[in-house]
C-alpha cells in the first residue's frame, strides 16, 4: 500500500525524524493560509503516488502567501505526468505547502527487506548521490551505495549508523543526528510493517541540520490487518476505479492495456494466462485471480469489471477446478452472463472435477460461450474472437 508524501512526513515526525514544517491543502485558498502561517519561503508540492513530480512541473517555490496561492492554483487539478505515472499522468487533488530550506547537500537513505535466501532481514541503504534516481545510481555507480544489514535477533546497533555515516562523510554533529534518524527509522519500519521507507533527499541544510526533504513509505499489504491507523491513510483516488471495485469484490485485479480480458483462479495460472494470450498474438487486458471461490455474485462482479473496460473485446475464463467443481463454475458463469446481458464473446477453458458436465452446460446455455480444452487453444480462440 502506498501513501502520500505529506502522510509519510507526518509518520517520520511521529518517530522523531526531522522533516520540514508543512500542511496539506486541497484548495488555493488553503495553500495561501498555510503559507501565511509558515511565514517565509515555502514550496508547493503536488501530492500523487508517484515520483519525479519536480521534473513534471508539480513542485513550485513561493516567497509569499499570494504566490503560494497562485502556485497551488496551477498545480491543483493538473494531470501531472512524470516518468513514474505513465503517459496519462495522475490528477493532482492535494498539495503539500511546506517551509523551504537552504540546502547544502543531498543524501539518500532507504530501508528495505532483503529476501535473499539465508539473509532474510531489514537492510539500510545510503548514498551521497541524494536527490537522484537511485536505480540509475545502482546501475551506473553501485560503489556509491552503502548497505548495512540488520540482524533480526540483534536489532538496531549503533555501528550500523556509523557504517553509513562515515561513508556519507558526515561530521560529528551530523553523525549524531544521523544515528538517531537511523535508529528511529528501524523502529518505524518494523512497528508499522513497512515494505519500503525512502528518504530522498535526506538533506543537510545550511545550518548543518539533517532534514527529510522528500520521503516515500510503502506498507506490506499483509501487515495492514494489524494497522487500522495505516489503512485509514489509503487514498482511493490514487487507485484505478476498476481495481478498487475488484478489491471490494475480494478479487486480485490489475488493469493493463490489452483487449483480451481474463478471469482465472490462481495467481501463477493468471500470469500464465496473460503470457499465453501474448504468445497467441493478443494482448491481455488485465490480471485477475478469483482465488479459491467463484460464487455467482463474485463472477457477476468480475464480469461487470471486465466489461467496464472499453478495451476488452473478448473474455478468457481459465479455471482449474480442484475443490472448485467445474459444473458449479459453469452454473455461475451462465447465471452471471445472463444477469449482466453479456455481449462479448467468452472462451471458457475448464479442467478438473466434473469437467464434462461443466462444459456441456456451457455449450447448451445458448450464450456466447466457446469451450476450449487446452491452455494454448483457449488463448488462440480468445484472440481469434476479437471483433466478432
Amino acid at each position, binding site marked *: 500500500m502506498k501513501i502520500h508524501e505529506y502522510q509519510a512526513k507526518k509518520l517520520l515526525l511521529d518517530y522523531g525524524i526531522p522533516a520540514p514544517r508543512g500542511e496539506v491543502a486541497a484548495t488555493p485558498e488553503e495553500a495561501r493560509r498555510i503559507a501565511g502561517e509558515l511565514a517565509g519561503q515555502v514550496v508547493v508540492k503536488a501530492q500523487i503516488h508517484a515520483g519525479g513530480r519536480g521534473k513534471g512541473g508539480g513542485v513550485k517555490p513561493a516567497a509569499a502567501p499570494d504566490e503560494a496561492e497562485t502556485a497551488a492554483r496551477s498545480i491543483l487539478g493538473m494531470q501531472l505526468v512524470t516518468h513514474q505515472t505513465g503517459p496519462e499522468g495522475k490528477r493532482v487533488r492535494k498539495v503539500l505547502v511546506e517551509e523551504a530550506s537552504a540546502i547544502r547537500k543531498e543524501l539518500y537513505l532507504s530501508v528495505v*527487506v532483503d*529476501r*535473499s*535466501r539465508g539473509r*532474510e*532481514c*531489514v537492510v539500510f541503504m545510503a548514498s551521497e548521490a541524494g536527490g537522484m534516481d*537511485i*536505480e540509475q545510481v*545502482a546501475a551506473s555507480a553501485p560503489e556509491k551505495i552503502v548497505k548495512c544489514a540488520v540482524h*533480526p*535477533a540483534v536489532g538496531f546497533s549503533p555501528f550500523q549508523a556509523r557504517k553509513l555515516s562515515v561513508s556519507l562523510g558526515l561530521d560529528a554533529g551530523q553523525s549524531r543526528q544521523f544515528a538517531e534518524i537511523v535508529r528511529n527509522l528501524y523502529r518505524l519500519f*518494523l512497528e508499522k*510493517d513497512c*515494505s519500503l521507507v525512502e528518504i530522498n533527499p535526506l538533506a543537510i541544510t545550511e545550518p548543518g541540520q539533517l532534514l527529510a526533504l522528500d520521503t516515500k513509505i510503502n506498507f*506490506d*499489504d*499483509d*501487515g495492514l*490487518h*494489524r494497522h487500522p491507523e495505516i489503512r485509514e491513510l489509503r487514498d482511493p483516488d490514487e487507485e484505478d476505479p476498476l481495481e478498487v471495485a475488484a478489491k471490494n469484490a475480494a478479487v*486480485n485485479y*490489475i488493469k*493493463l492495456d490489452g483487449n483480451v480480458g481474463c478471469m*482465472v*483462479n*490462481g*495467481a*501463477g*495460472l*493468471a*500470469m*500464465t494466462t*496473460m*503470457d*499465453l*494470450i*501474448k*504468445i497467441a498474438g493478443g494482448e*491481455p487486458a488485465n*490480471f485477475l*485471480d478469483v482465488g479459491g471461490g467463484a460464487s455467482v455474485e463474485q463472477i457477476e462482479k468480475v464480469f461487470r469489471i471486465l466489461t467496464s473496460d472499453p478495451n476488452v473485446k473478448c473474455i478468457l475464463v481459465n479455471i*482449474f*477446478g*480442484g*475443490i472448485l467443481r467445474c459444473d458449479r463454475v459453469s452454473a455461475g458463469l451462465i447465471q452471471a452472463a445472463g444477469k449482466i446481458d453479456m455481449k462479448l464473446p467468452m472462451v471458457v477453458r475448464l*479442467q*478438473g*472435477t466434473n469437467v464434462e458436465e461443466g462444459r456441456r452446460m456451457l455449450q447448451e446455455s445458448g450464450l456466447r460461450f466457446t469451450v476450449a480444452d*487446452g*491452455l*494454448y*487453444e483457449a488463448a488462440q480462440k480468445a484472440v481469434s474472437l476479437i471483433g466478432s
Partner: protein
Amino acid sequence: MTILLNEKSRVVVQGITGSEGSFHTRESVKMETNVVAGVTPGKGGTDLDGIPVYNRVSDAVEREGANVSGIYTPAAFAPDAIFEAIEAGIGLVVCMTEGLPVAEMIKVKQALKGSGTRMIGPNCPGITTPGVGKVGFMPNFIHRIGNVGVVSRSGTLTYEMIWQLTGLGIGQSTSVGIGGDPIVGSGFIDILELFEKDPQTEAIVMIGEIGGTAEEEAAEFIQTQVAKPVVSFIAGRTAPPGRRMGHAGAIISGGKGTAEEKIKALERAGVFVEKNPAEIGRRVQEILKRIAA
C-alpha cells in the same frame, strides 16, 4: 524413497476444526495420509472423524508421535502456530496460510535456524506424495506415482503442470508447493537438493514466477550441484513492473526479478526452459525418453 513425506510421517493438523482445516484433512485422509491428530486451542478433547484434537502441539507429539504439521490457521495466528510447532520439535512444518506479514517471516526464519525443523510455505498448496499422502490441498485426482519431482511457487498452475504429466502417463515422485511469498521456509535450492539425492526422482519440473532472485540462485545451484535434468517454466513474462501479481512475492521491484532475467539465468545453467506452458508435459516426456535411451 520419497522426499519429505514417507510411511513414517505422522501428521498433526493445526487449525483442524476450522473450515479449511477440516475440509482438507478429510481430503488428505481420502488419499490415505496418516493424520494422527489435530490442534485447535480450546477444542482439545474433541475429535474430527475419530482423529483426536488437542489444545497443544506438544500433546500431539507426546501422545500421538506427530512429526509433521500442516497449518491452516488464519494469517494473524499462523506465525504463532509455526513457532509452537518448532518448539514442540516437529521436523516438517507445512504452512498453507496466505497473508503472513513479511516481518513475521523474518522472525520465523530466525526461529528455524539451528532448530531441526524444516518448513514449507507459507501461502502454498503443500506437499503431495502419490502413494503416501498429502499435507496441503492439491486436488487428489491430478496425481500419479512416478519419477518426476515437481517444485513450484504456484498453486493452480502447479496442478496444471502435474495434470499434464499425469495425462501423458508420467507420474510424480513428490510435488512440492514452496509458496508465493517473498520469504519462504524452503526455497527452490532446498527442494532441488532433496530431489537430487532421491533415487525415485529422475527428472525435475521447476515452476517459477516473477519477483525476487530464487530462480537465479537455483540456476547457480543447478549448474554445479544438480545432475538430473530440470525442465522449467517461468510465469509472468507479461507482468508490468512494480505491481504485486496476486502473490506477495510476485513483484518486479527496481527493475529486478523479471521473467526474462530468470529464464536467461536458468538457460545458462543448462535448464530446459519451456516458453509455452501447454508444452511442459511433452518436454518432460522427450527428456525422459532421452535419458531412458
